[in-house]
């Protein structure tokens, strides 16, 4: 079972969390503000490796936090 470390509540099983998706990053090469908005909202990296993600501790403190998850090994860093 995958466990996540909530900064407020401590280590908890992943069932307690809701996945909020990747933390979006927009490449610097996109300069037009509207295109940056589109990229931010719609374009996902779906990385193989370290992915920065948002998770919501819905069964605990009900707060969002950011973790680094290795999508190959499923290991997580807070």
């Amino acid at each position: 079972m995958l466990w996540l470390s909530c900064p407020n509540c401590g280590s908890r099983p992943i069932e307690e969390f809701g996945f909020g998706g990747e933390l979006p990053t927009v490449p610097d090469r996109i300069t037009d503000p509207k295109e940056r908005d589109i990229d931010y909202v719609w374009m996902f990296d779906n990385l193989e490796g370290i992915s920065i993600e948002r998770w919501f501790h819905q069964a605990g403190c009900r707060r969002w936090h950011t973790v680094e998850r290795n999508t190959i090994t499923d290991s997580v860093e807070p």
Partner: protein
Amino acid sequence: MLALNTLRGIRVVAAPHVLDAATWPAHVTALRIAPDDIFAIEATEADAAGVASADSHSIIVDEHGFVGCWLDHQQLEHITRHIEWHAPLHRPALVQGYVAGVPAKIWLTDERSLLLCASPYAADLMERVS
């Protein structure tokens, strides 16, 4: 058999440093749900006047959406069998997470503990831990 009763108090949302400095009357049990969020059981808005003056953006409202019951050591031991994660050893401490698969909180003190959850989950929690 545990019986969950409505817990009345106030919910205080404010800047973390303001909540760090807040003081509460002796009869109030203040549960720090998150860095910016306190559920103060048996408190009134007047008890949070200091928070309101220190943080003009604070939110202080009556809260009666939680139910709970006080547990003795034996009852707490029974409840902890329904928890997958490890409770901290220090007291007092607030722990939050699934208890028997239901989102719940436990306020742990040396003398007794308070099991609480949002009122819509009360029936599920009781069914699963009884």
